[in-house]
């Protein structure tokens, strides 16, 4: 019985010592890995910050490219419209010239100008963008669109 108890005591002491030794190694390993983990966590934080910065910079670049494309589309549309506008203006000018030309020779009776002047008989000689030239009893009269009444302006196709 004595021997058994002594054996038990020895086993306990050596066992405990062994565990302590093992624990000491484990503690040191855990400490080491924990330090590495902390360093790795810091590295990951830095990497994430860099990733965010790069992503936002590239996003901004992408946005700028999209804006450049949108601007190119608008400019192309503007160019087309400008061409169309120019063609329409020419067409309007041509039509206006035609319709005004057809008025040459027409004799207007009882014409009242915007300032109240009255023209008894006025024969239209020329109509252009600058105004109307008319032959009246006293000679040739040049009337600008501003001097015409709204009805006459419309008659001569002035805005």
């Amino acid at each position, binding site marked *: *019985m*004595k021997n058994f*108890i*002594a054996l*038990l*005591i020895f*086993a*306990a*002491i050596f*066992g*405990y010592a062994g*565990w*302590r030794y*093992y*624990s000491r190694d*484990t*503690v040191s*390993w*855990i400490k080491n*890995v*924990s330090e*590495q*983990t902390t360093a*790795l*966590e810091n*590295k*990951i934080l830095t*990497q*994430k910050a*860099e*990733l965010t*910065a*790069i*992503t*936002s*910079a*590239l996003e*901004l*670049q992408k*946005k*700028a490219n999209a*804006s*450049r494309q*949108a*601007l190119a589309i*608008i*400019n192309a*549309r*503007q160019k087309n*419209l*400008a061409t*169309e*506008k120019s063609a*329409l*203006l020419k*067409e*309007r000018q041509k*039509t206006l010239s035609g*319709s005004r030309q057809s008025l040459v020779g027409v004799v207007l009776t009882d014409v009242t100008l915007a300032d109240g002047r009255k023209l008894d008989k006025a024969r239209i000689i020329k109509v252009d963008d600058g105004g109307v030239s008319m032959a009246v009893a006293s000679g040739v009269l040049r009337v600008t669109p501003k001097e015409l009444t709204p009805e006459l302006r419309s008659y001569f196709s002035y805005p």
Partner: protein
Amino acid sequence: MKMFPCKTQPLALCGMLAIGLLLTGCDKPLKMQAEAKEVGAKFDALQTESRSLEARLTELRKALPPAGSPEESVRIVQAKASGELTILEANLKAAAANLKETETAVANLKKEIAPQRSN
């Protein structure tokens, strides 16, 4: 009066103490082992995450212009894109307004010319 009536009594006491010591000694390393396992797993997971982030960063850095450092590259890209974007947005606004104006002018001209075309 004897402290220990039997000769084996102190030994038995020591034995009991030894068993207690053994049991408490066993429990601590087991806990430590679990902690070590947990710490190791966390470290491995972080290492995997770090590698994946590094791979992504390497890929993204290719899109940046070469400079002294990655931070410098990012700063250059950000400053350039930001400046461009400000100018482009202003240009876009002006171009959109011009376009609207021209569209209105063209529509008015078409409306004006339409009756003359039909004649």
